[in-house]
Structures are given as C-alpha cells and as structure tokens.
C-alpha cells in the first residue's frame, strides 16, 4: 500500500465512492427536483414540471404540517430526555456491579433488539381500552379504563411511553460504556478528598460522561425525529391528528394521497430539522471540548 501513488489510491476507492454517490446523491437530487416541481403523468410517461416554491408556500400555510412539527418536537423532547435520564440511572445502578449485573445488563437491552413493528403491536394490545391487560387490572381495582390510544389528550404520551421502553436500552448501553471508560484514579482521588457520592457524580462522573452523553443524545434525537413505525401501528397518527409525526405525515401525503411532490417537500423540511438538531449537538460538543481544554 505504501508504494501506491495518489492516482492508484483514488482509483481503488472510486467504486465505493461512485456507489455511495449513486445511492445517496441521486435520491437526494431527485427529491430536490420533486420539492420544486409538480409530478404529472402524460402519455404513459412520468414528468416533473418546475413549480417554483409553490410546495413550500403550501407547506408553510398547512395547519397539518405545523401540527406534525409540534407532535414530532414533543416526542423528541420528552422521549429522548426520559430515555437519557432512565438510561443514566440504570447505567449507574449497574456500574457498581451489583449481584446479577450480567443478567440485568442483557435484560435491559432486550427491547432494543425487537423490531418496532412488533413493539408497536405489543403495546397496542397492552394499551387496548377494551381488552388490554392494563384495562383489566384497572377495572379489578375499581378504576375506569383509560383511553391510552383513543383519547386525543393521552395517545401521544402512550406513544412516548412505548418509545422510551424500546430505546432506553440504547442510552443505557452508551452511558454504561462511558462510565466504564472513566479512569478509576479520578474516582479514587475524589474518595481520598472525602467527596460525597453526589459530589463525585456532579463534579467527576458527569463532566467525563458529557461526550458519550452528547453522542447518545444526538444519535437518539436524529432517530426520534424520524419516528413513524410505532405510531403507524399503534394509532395511525390519530385520533384526529394527535399523534401524526412529520414522517408519517409525509408518508400519508406521498403514498396515500400520491402527492409525491408535496410528500418530498415534507421530507425535506424534516431533513432541515434534523440538520439543525445535529448542528446544535455538534456545537455543544465543541463548546464542551473548549471548556475542558481551558
């Protein structure tokens, strides 16, 4: 390898680059064309006509779009925060290597291994207001059934509970690995100085856990912005518009109403939101690094 020139190196990696460009750039450009176009079907051919910014104007005036933005932000904000907090508590509990640590480490990870479709159906059955186990338990203790998925004021939180149940293990894994990577010397030095458990947590563990925390939050937020499968199975976006996320909105417009150009515009708006979130976390990482260097 050492004898290869720049040209040969470029030649060798070119197939991978070409494939990557084909599978990422081409769909991106095609979607971009749709965003500023209108799809029509003339004489057995599909044609994209230029439509300026009309799709964007329509988007900005669409109440359903703003509702989907709000729903998505609520899910991301609440679910990712809860997943982080619970994941951190679980990681700290196992960090001390209590009895049965290995068993619990595997147990905590199980939900993450299931497909979202299976998780969606399972929780849909659990939350079923007529025949679900929760309803059965509540009725036995004399409490009226709760409309987990049928009450517009509650349905979103049922979705969030399901997402938290499935994805907390992801946070747990990253934070547990982060905790394991903390040099023991720091904690021993804090012990020698007589630091309480709380002070060790605040002044030693958390600062050292910041980089994996930000990575975990970034990865989970980006994924959570795209949430669709669990919602599709559990509520279909309803009741009404109570749980319609941006991705589901785009899917419904693109593949139920077959309005491909508008569906692509919705997808692009989601892309911008994810981009902003990613930039925010990247800036946060840089700031933290700067503080640590100081």
């Amino acid at each position: 390898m050492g004898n290869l020139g720049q040209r040969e190196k470029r030649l060798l990696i070119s197939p991978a680059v070409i494939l990557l460009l084909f599978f990422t750039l081409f769909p991106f450009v095609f979607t971009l064309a749709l965003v500023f176009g209108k799809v029509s079907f003339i004489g057995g051919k599909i044609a994209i006509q230029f439509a300026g910014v009309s799709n964007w104007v329509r988007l900005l005036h669409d109440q359903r779009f703003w509702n989907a933005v709000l729903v998505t932000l609520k899910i991301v904000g609440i679910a990712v925060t809860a997943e982080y907090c619970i994941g951190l508590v679980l990681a700290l509990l196992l960090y001390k290597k209590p009895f049965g640590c290995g068993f619990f480490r595997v147990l905590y990870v199980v939900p993450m291994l299931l497909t979202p479709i299976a998780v969606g159906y399972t929780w849909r059955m659990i939350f079923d207001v007529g025949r679900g186990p929760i309803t059965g338990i509540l009725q036995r203790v004399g409490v009226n059934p709760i409309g987990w998925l049928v009450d517009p004021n509650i349905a979103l939180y049922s979705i969030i509970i399901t997402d938290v149940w499935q994805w907390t293990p992801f946070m747990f894994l990253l934070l547990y690995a982060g905790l394991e990577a903390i040099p023991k010397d720091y904690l021993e030095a804090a012990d020698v100085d007589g630091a309480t458990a709380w002070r060790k947590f605040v002044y030693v563990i958390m600062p050292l856990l910041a980089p994996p925390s930000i990575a975990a939050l970034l990865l989970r937020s980006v994924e959570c912005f795209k949430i669709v499968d669990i919602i599709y199975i559990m509520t279909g976006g309803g009741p009404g518009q109570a749980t319609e996320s941006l991705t589901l909105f785009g899917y419904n417009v693109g593949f139920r109403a077959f309005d491909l150009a508008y569906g692509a515009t919705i997808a692009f708006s989601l892309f911008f939101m994810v981009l902003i979130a990613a930039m925010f976390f990247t800036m946060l990482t840089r700031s933290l690094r700067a503080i640590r260097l100081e």
Partner: protein
Amino acid sequence: MRMFRKSVVLALVVLVGLVGGAAARKYEGVTITVFTQPPPYIAKPVMMFAPDWEKATGAKINLVTAPWGELYPKMYASFGLAEALFDIVIFPAAWLPDFASAGFLVPLDEFIAKDPYIQWEDILPIYRERIVSWEGKVYAVPLDGDCHIFYYRKDALENPEYQAKFKEKYGYDLPVPPKTWKQVRDIAEFFHGWDWDGDGQVEYGVVEPRRYAGQADWCFFSRTVGYVALPGQPGGLFFDPETMEPRINSPGHVRALEDYVEIMKYGVPGMINMDSGEIRSVFAAGLAAMAIDWGDIGVISEVGEESTVRGKVGYAVLPGSDEVWDFSRGTWVKLAEPNQAGYLAFGGWVAGIAHNSKHIEAAYDFISYLSRPENSYISVTTPETGFNPYRYSHFEKLSGWIGMGFSAEAAEAYLKAIKDTIGHPNVQPDLRIPGQARYFEAVDRALSRVVAGELTPKAALDEVAKIWDQITNELGRDKQLLYYRLSLGLPPK
C-alpha cells in the same frame, strides 16, 4: 432384436409426443410478471392457478408483490419505463381512471371479443360496463366484486324477549334487518353494554372502522349513500355532474357524518382506533350486534376457525333513510320507503396489462384464465383470496360456498345481500376519476378529526369541499368533469 425395435419405436413415439406437445404450448419460454399485494389476499389466486396455466402454455408466472402503500408508486414507476417491470398489474378498480387516462394500460376489447373462455356476459353489468371501462374502452378484467353490506346478529335481533323490550322502550317493532340508520342507532343503543348472548361477556351495539387509513372513508360513504342518492339524480355522492362542484358538504353528507359520530357511543370500546381488518375479528369474536363491511365478515364469521358467531349472522343490504337530500331543489324529500341505495365501495380488484409489456397476448391469456367462470368460482369460494363474487354464475351454485364452510341457509342469505346490493337500481359506484386517492385522503383525514372532536361535521366537510375544489382545479376542472360524467355513464357536456 424385436425387443430393440420395439424400444426404438416406443422412444420415437415418446419423442414425437414430447416435441408435438411442446410445439402446442403457445407461450414456451415467455415469463409473465404479475404485480400485486403480498399473499394471501389477492395474490393467492395467482399462486393457485399459475401452475396449471404454466403447464398448459409453457410460459412462466413470476409473482412480485409489495405492501399496499407501495403498490401505486411501484406500478407508476414500472409504467414509466421503456420495458415494463410488471406485465400484469392487479390493482384496486378506483385507480383505473388514473392509469387509463395516462395511457398506462392496454385496451382489452379486441382480446375479450375473440376470447371464448372468459364469458364476458357472465360478469355483472356494473363491473364489466362501468368498473373496468374508461372512455368507452375496457382496460381491465374484474377479479373481485366489492360492495359494502350490513351484518347483524340474528340471535340478538330476532330474540322475542329482546324484541318485546325494544318495542317497550322505543315504541316500534325491532326491525330485522334495520332499514334506516335511525333504526340502527336505536338498536345499537339497545344492545350496548350488556351480555345479551349469555356468554358471560359484555357485548356492544356496533363495530365499524374509524381509524385514519383504516378504510373508514368507505364506511362513511356507505352511511351517506341513503341520504344523498335520490333515485334519478346521478352523482349525489361526490360531485355535481353539471359543474363539478363538490357535494361532500351537503346537508345529506353532514347528517350522515353526525350519525357516523353518534353511533360511536354504542361502539365496541376502542373503535376509534380500529381498521376494517380489526372490526372483522371483533365481530367474529361475538362482541358486536351489527357491522358494515365488504364480504369478508361473512366469510370470517361462517368459516373462520376462531369465530364464535357461526350460523348466528344475518346479512342485508345497507340501511338508508326515509329522507333524502334533493340537490336539484335544495331540500329534503320524504320517501314512502327508505332509500337503501347500495354502494360499490372500492369497486374490487381488477387485472390490467401494462402498455409497455412485451408479452401482451400471453398476459391477457393468464388474466382470462384467472377470470373464467370455473376458476373465478374457485377463487371466490376459497378462504383468504380476498375475492368476492362478481359473476352471475358465482351466485347460482351453492356447492362452493357450502364446501367452504357456510351452511346452505347462510350462503343463500349472504349471496342474496351481495346480489341485492350490486343489482339495486340505484346502486352508487365508487369515485372513479383521476386523483381519487387524493380526494379520499382528504375525506379520511377530516373523518378522523371529527371523531377525535377536533372539528364539527359541518366544518370538516366544508374543509374537504375546499380541498376537493383545489384538487379539481389542479387536475383540470373540465377534464375532471368529463371523466366524472363518463364514470357515471353520462354523456360528455
């Protein structure tokens, strides 16, 4: 030596037979790709009949499937190529206007005229003349007959004790089957929330789909048709056939939507989140007294292994209304008999040939094989094909239905309800113009918002009317008007 000669002669005979047989197979080496949704529903008949057809013709059937949401875009993508990915597409009849008007499908009139096996006249006129035709030409072959019918529990509604109590409470005889939606409401209220079949479980009044993207929109139109389809006034259900103005927010539609919301009080808990697949299993589990569905509830209830209602189900045409909205006069009209116009919800699955297929003749031959009377009879009387009767011959013989698991009495009642619906003089076809999916999505969205309490019925339907107008303008009002009139069997303006 004689033995050797005999062997040679025998070998020659076999060889000649093989060569001759192969020569007789007219599509040797041809591969026909069929595209539809994954098995069992809809794809199952293709899998059932492909081997025999392959043996007879020498061709191969390559079945390609995709989930419901991907069918339409994948079909469109294939139509746009120089050579089709799919020779045969099996799709919902409602998409035919989109495909035919864009030139994506091969006209089949000449093939049908020359085909001695398909027995075109055996197909019910509403399907062969309206559902599969576009601008006077036939573009597809029906494989499935779809209409909504009404289901009720005979053991509940025909129980003399309950009938007496009902009369005492409501002041009129419990009608079996109900003829108006008002009666359905009363019956649903009466049978809601108590154990009327003595199985130790609480039962409920009705079960109907209310979930967005769960086929609730067809349920809404089934509940609307009696209020707006005044005999002799075409187009009441969707648009004014003179101007293409939406009729979706008429007083008839609003009243139907109010009923649609009110009946939920007497529905199975969680009905707001149920799609049509779920209501079938709920009805078959014995939890509801009444339901609206395609033919599927009948099959699942009478044949399904987990059904608890076998032999207890009654079948009827959709209820209607004593009062019908008269669009020409802008007023309600009272009729002597309830208006129970049927509704061909969805219109069924049809098979068409892609314009860019290289094997049009062979593709037609396979479609014809699927649809011919003897094979289609097997399809409609086999569980999990998703196909319902659409030929006269499907209604004539009971043996297939009894073989499937129906009792003779149940089969007769089931087929009668379907036949009476399809054959009703005022039966309303589904919307069959380009953009159908967009028009219906707007309705579906509005319905889900109304049942969630986000909008009132009137406000929601006014919003739908606005969206329908936008779609019509975008697709070209004159063109849409022409297509709408043609879909209703009216001459161009």
